[in-house]
């Protein structure tokens, strides 16, 4: 009896570990390695594009298309005769992967993995599913830098898609931006789509920027509204860049004064 007790005292740790290992291996083999795969998925989770993000992008695109249609309809009424010649445009855009973000916390920028050799130039307009993202501000042979519309230095002429009231959109370094309207009492309500204005020289008109989140109309002059940007910029991995000729031709076809 004493012999058995001593043996147990001496080997119990190894024995328990061995049993645990064997048991674990057995369970693992019975479960087809699901546990390990789950752990692996959990670890690599941040590197994966999950379904929720994809759904958000698709939703954003649906909203964009719907708003674009509404916007085109309303613009069509006033611009029909002016636009009939160049109504069919040969869109030249390339899909570009995002290489990195801005190198400090004050600027809102993207670095793209294509540059001048692919036809990107300073001023090229950058899109993503959902709407406008920004504008190329610097370009090298193989990369380009985009100033996002969420940057506080970026100011864009925009209009309310439904009522055509004009304003200026300024980024807030977040997913929201602020529109300052020109009119004292603009016809605008929460949920209205904000699109780029035809007066903007930097962006082609009618592109979805975001939708109104809250209103601050009671301010005496310069009524303001908070706009939720349409594109989930922080989640993007690919963007679409309109090559410069295209932007230019878009601008040419649109009259300065509708």
């Amino acid at each position, binding site marked *: 009896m004493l012999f058995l007790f001593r043996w147990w005292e001496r080997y119990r740790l190894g024995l328990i570990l061995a049993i645990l290992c064997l048991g674990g291996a057995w369970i693992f083999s019975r479960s087809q390695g699901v546990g390990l795969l789950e752990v692996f998925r959990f670890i690599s989770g941040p590197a994966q594009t999950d379904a929720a993000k994809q759904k958000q992008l698709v939703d954003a695109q649906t909203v964009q298309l719907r708003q674009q249609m509404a916007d085109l309809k309303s613009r069509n009424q006033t611009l029909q005769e002016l636009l009939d010649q160049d109504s069919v445009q040969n869109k030249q855009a390339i899909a570009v992967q995002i290489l990195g973000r801005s190198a400090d916390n004050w600027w809102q920028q993207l670095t793209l993995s294509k540059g001048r050799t692919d036809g990107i130039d300073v001023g090229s307009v950058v899109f993503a599913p959902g709407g406008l993202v920004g504008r190329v501000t610097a370009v090298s042979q193989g990369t380009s830098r985009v100033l996002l519309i969420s940057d506080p230095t970026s100011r864009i002429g925009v209009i309310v898609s439904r009522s055509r009231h004009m304003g200026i959109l300024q980024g807030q*370094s977040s997913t929201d931006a602020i529109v300052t309207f020109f009119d004292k009492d603009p016809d605008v309500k929460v949920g209205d789509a904000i699109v780029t204005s035809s007066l903007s020289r930097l962006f082609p008109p009618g592109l979805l920027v975001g939708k109104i989140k809250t209103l601050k109309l009671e301010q005496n002059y310069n009524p303001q509204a908070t706009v939720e940007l349409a594109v989930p910029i922080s989640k993007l991995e690919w963007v679409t860049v309109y090559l410069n000729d295209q932007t230019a031709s878009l601008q040419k076809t649109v009259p300065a004064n509708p």
Partner: protein
Amino acid sequence: MIKPLPFRKQSPLTLNLWNAAVVVGSVMLCALMLILRLPVMVLSGIGPNWLLVWVVTWSIKRTSVEGVLAGICLGLIQDGLTAAQPTHTVGLALVGLLTGRLNKKRFIQEDFISIALIVFAMALMVEAVAAIQFGLGGTHRLEDVWLHFRQMALSSGILSSLWAPVVYFPLNRWWTRYHRLLGIE
């Protein structure tokens, strides 16, 4: 203690070349990390300021002049990566100056905690300098700058100090060995 000395037989020139390669390579790596924003390193869209950590690591055992020089160089690199106006050199040069002037012998042991604390304080300072520059620049409204500074400075400081050992440990180890091989220390 440092046991293997693979560079013992090397001439000072080779050693210096190696050192230059380490310096350039580590700076490039830091600059790359700055734009990469890997998911584990990001807190509400804000990443660690790798170049700041590098400047602190560099200046901690050097004079303030060397620190200022490094700060200016890396500030220029960061300018190149974002925008030159307002410049990042002011903040990083200040970091190099102050870190170089710290009386390490008396106040600070060279451990990760001290490094993390220094980096934290320096990150707050760099963001404050940037905030002042943006505020004076006239492109941003003052209340926006203040709001953004409050939202960001703390996360930037915490992240930078948490990730500081990743830069500090290998570089410090290399420089200790390098100086010993050259007979400086």
